[in-house]
């Protein structure tokens, strides 16, 4: 379901919490044009996408602005949102914080690649 940005973030947080119990969480982002969004945001009970005319495919609409479509899936639950240019900064901040806060189940340091331990600097005279 298409949500607005804030609702999406809240929901995504919930999905992250659920994913702790198992399952994978997918987050997909892709560029999309505002034309498609207009069709999606009108809730007229349409279940199929409106077919794009050839003209739209070949030449982008002059007033179309680039925006970013986000989808998140956990099992059968799907949410999505569209981020416009003007909301980008705010969303970016919130989204980054959310990722950093939630992806915490990873190793703190790689065991395989050992960082060289800082050696105490000794002068040759000390070694004798």
């Amino acid at each position, binding site marked *: 379901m298409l949500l607005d940005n804030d609702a999406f973030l809240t929901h995504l947080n919930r999905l992250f919490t659920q994913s702790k119990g*198992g399952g994978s969480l997918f987050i*997909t*982002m*892709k560029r999309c044009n505002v034309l498609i969004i207009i069709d999606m945001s009108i809730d007229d009970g349409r279940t199929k996408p409106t077919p794009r005319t050839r003209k739209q495919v070949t030449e982008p609409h002059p007033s179309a602005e*680039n925006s970013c479509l986000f989808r998140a899936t956990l099992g059968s639950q799907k949410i999505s949102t569209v981020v416009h240019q003007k909301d*980008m900064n705010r969303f970016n901040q919130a*989204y980054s914080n959310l*990722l950093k806060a939630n*992806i915490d189940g990873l190793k703190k340091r790689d065991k395989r690649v050992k960082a060289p331990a800082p050696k105490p600097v000794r002068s040759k005279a000390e070694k004798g």
Partner: protein
Amino acid sequence: MTNFNSWEEFAKAAEVLYLVDPLKYRHVDRKLSIKVTDNHIVLKYVTDMAQDVKKMEKFVSLLMRHMCSKEK
């Protein structure tokens, strides 16, 4: 299908390609994988380290800005 071992290589290649990127997180396996594809070429990076989260998050923000920018 290209699997990367170093984040830097991956990020460079992905920025050239960027189109779609699914981000997959499995808390149970303690793994995070990120994939960038244009339906012909697939670039993947799988990690289990916390230090990559920050890099990944920076990279995702970069892509977001790319996508919203005016130029094609």
